[in-house]
């Protein structure tokens, strides 16, 4: 299939390309930019006038709930929602049921995603057996099965001896380690430890529950030299710690979930369970530091931290609800809102959603070089829409009711149109 995407503003952050031009897609690959490759006959023309054409988004952290929690969502339901949001690759953390600690689970996820056909799903393997933080998982086998890294799956390893060995073993097989820094004991509360939690009587999670773990992990990473990625930072001080480590040359990267760039502890007033997230929404100063970190590159990835839930999971008093936001539908739009606010330029935002994650994952995706897989997102940046219902099966979003910028009009996966508005 030959597809011509005509007259759009093509932004390819990996090659610092930004111009109004035509993009040619042939046999699933990017075949030309500006001028058609030899023998190109467009079978389909997409009019992209006034629209942005960029690599399909890569979401570094999306829980699809399959296998194990299919009452919340499935790979089919969520990849379909992803396609409509311009996301072509989803990275699935290993805390499924069963845990992604053996090749069979990786294979199952791959098959389900392929059967659905809306987006690529890549798995992160577990660092430890059953994510229990006791014995190492079979990381080499997981890598061979296609895992793009190994992770604590949101359950930080508290035993420093086990963690050190897990990092060493991962480094042996050249695996990047994905860590979620939140001390389970100090971080066992419900809300950011501060004036709002005090007023509402919610147990607090101090910033040190995150920064303390990062500081410890950085020392181990320095010793071992393993490539490590900190996921879902929430505090100003965490950004500082990571930036300083990067300046010292440590092989460390980090990301932030897009909702942490928009909401703060103040949004918990009224006990809104849709704002129950881990790590918690923190202060305004933290939110601003996270925005600045994303702009500077200290945080090189923006992700959805997608956690769809069935309605019952959020229909209870705050402390009895499950944490997490359904984030696929709003990832790009909330990012564009930051561009509109002047927090960062559009090409930088798109870099954090495409080339940024691809680099960390070691994937030949997220760019528009000739021959690259034609995973593409076409969107109208100025078309505002009302977030009424989400395409994800999880409707648990604090952004429902918000007017958001940027409507995706076309999503291509390996040259196939998987979504068209």
């Amino acid at each position, binding site marked *: 299939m030959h597809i011509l995407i005509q007259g759009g503003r093509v932004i390819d952050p990996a090659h610092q390309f930004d111009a109004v031009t035509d993009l040619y897609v042939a046999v699933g690959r990017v075949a030309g930019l500006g001028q058609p490759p030899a023998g190109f006959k467009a079978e389909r023309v997409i009019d992209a006038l006034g629209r942005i054409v960029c690599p399909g988004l890569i979401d570094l952290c999306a829980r699809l709930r399959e296998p194990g929690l299919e009452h919340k969502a499935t790979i089919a339901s969520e990849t379909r929602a992803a396609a409509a949001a311009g996301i072509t690759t989803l990275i699935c953390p290993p805390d499924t049921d069963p845990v992604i600690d053996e090749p069979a689970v990786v294979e199952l996820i791959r098959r389900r995603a392929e059967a659905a056909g809306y987006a690529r799903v890549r798995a992160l393997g577990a660092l430890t057996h059953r994510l229990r933080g006791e014995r190492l998982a079979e990381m080499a086998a997981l890598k061979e099965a296609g895992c793009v890294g190994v992770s604590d799956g949101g359950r930080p390893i508290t035993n420093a001896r086990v963690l050190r060995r897990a990092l060493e073993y991962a480094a042996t097989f050249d695996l990047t380690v994905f860590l979620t820094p939140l001390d389970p004991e100090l971080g066992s509360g419900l809300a950011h430890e501060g*004036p709002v939690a005090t007023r509402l009587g919610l147990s607090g999670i101090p910033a040190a529950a995150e920064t303390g773990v990062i500081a410890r992990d950085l020392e181990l990473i320095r010793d071992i030299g393993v490539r490590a990625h900190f996921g879902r930072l929430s505090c100003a001080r965490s950004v500082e710690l990571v930036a300083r480590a990067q300046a010292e040359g440590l092989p460390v990267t980090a990301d932030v979930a897009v909702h942490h760039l928009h909401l703060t502890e103040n949004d918990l*007033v009224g006990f809104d369970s849709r704002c129950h997230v881990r790590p918690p929404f923190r202060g305004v100063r933290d939110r601003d530091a996270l925005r600045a970190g994303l702009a500077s590159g200290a945080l090189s990835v923006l992700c959805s931290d997608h956690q769809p839930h069935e309605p019952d999971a959020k229909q209870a008093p705050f402390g009895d609800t499950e944490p997490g936001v359904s984030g696929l539908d709003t990832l790009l739009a909330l990012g564009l809102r930051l561009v509109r606010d002047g927090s960062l330029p559009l090409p930088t935002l798109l870099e954090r959603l495409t080339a940024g994650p691809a680099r960390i994952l070691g994937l030949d995706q997220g760019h528009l070089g000739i021959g690259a897989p034609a995973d593409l997102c076409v969107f109208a940046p100025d078309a505002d829409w009302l977030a009424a219902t989400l395409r994800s099966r999880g409707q648990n979003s604090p952004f429902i009711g918000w007017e958001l910028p940027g409507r995706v009009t076309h999503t291509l996966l390996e040259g196939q149109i998987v979504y068209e508005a």
Partner: protein
Amino acid sequence: MSATHFQLDPQGRLLHFLTIEGLTRRHLTDILDTAESLHGVAERRVKKLPTLHGKTVVNLFFEASTRTRTTFELAAKRLSADVLTLNIATSSAVKGESLLDTLRNIEAMQCDMFVVRHEQSGAAEFIARHVKPHIAVLNAGDGRHAHPTQAMLDVFTIRRHKPDFAHLQVAIVGDILHSRVARSLIHALNILGAGEIRVVAPRTLLPAQVENLGVRVFHCPDDGLRDVDVIVMLRLQKERMEGALLPSEPEFFQRYGLTEERLTLAKPDVLVMHPGPINRGVEIDSRVADGPRSVILEQVTNGIAVRMAIMSITLGNHARPAGEAV
């Protein structure tokens, strides 16, 4: 929308009683004045008023309680309501029924008021948001968040002895961190213009940035109790030792317990209060709890009149169609 506004109708009248925060001085003085007028009912031969005749009040207690539950029950009965008390901690919640399902079932029994106690902060507001609009919800304690009827009976008791709030100095001593009583009382005293509110506790028992609630922080009772008009001692739960918040009960009693000796730091006519149940020899010496400055049992008695007042005000506002003048 926050609970602050959610419990009021568009005219600013109380539909529910979920939290003190955000109420006006007028709201509080109305409750106190109504409670004062109801206070005499208990001394009559027939201790009943017909105010809530034909109404059904359901006590929904998801957490154990004796004093709060019984005073709510008595208050409802003295207003001639039919009262049903459900200790859900030991019934359907255990069988896995969700809170919303429990609510729907009880709602189907055509009730007019829910009195709710729950271990989770925000539970009373959650229930108020999900019940049918004709039902009034009273918060009888939600997690660490609020215990507004307790705060009202506390200020009622204080006002009966010391009506001039402008010069009132109140010390709240003990486990502020876990205390819904402290949070609600601090709001009530601030709204009523109390001269100074102090909290006295070690740092492990104070929530972050507690001074933002409008209090002065003291770590040492020898400073914190000096010249105060009211001392409110809070109950110390035994679990606090396991949570590594305190080393031991004896050490707490030695440093923070209210003894006769410490009592002399306060004004001679100081009122000693406690929301109960008291731990003798942990936060308070028996000689003080039973002594002449103690108004602890008076608080219990006053709780009935105050709860009667709040029940009749909120249900009265429900009965009146919206828009009609008060």
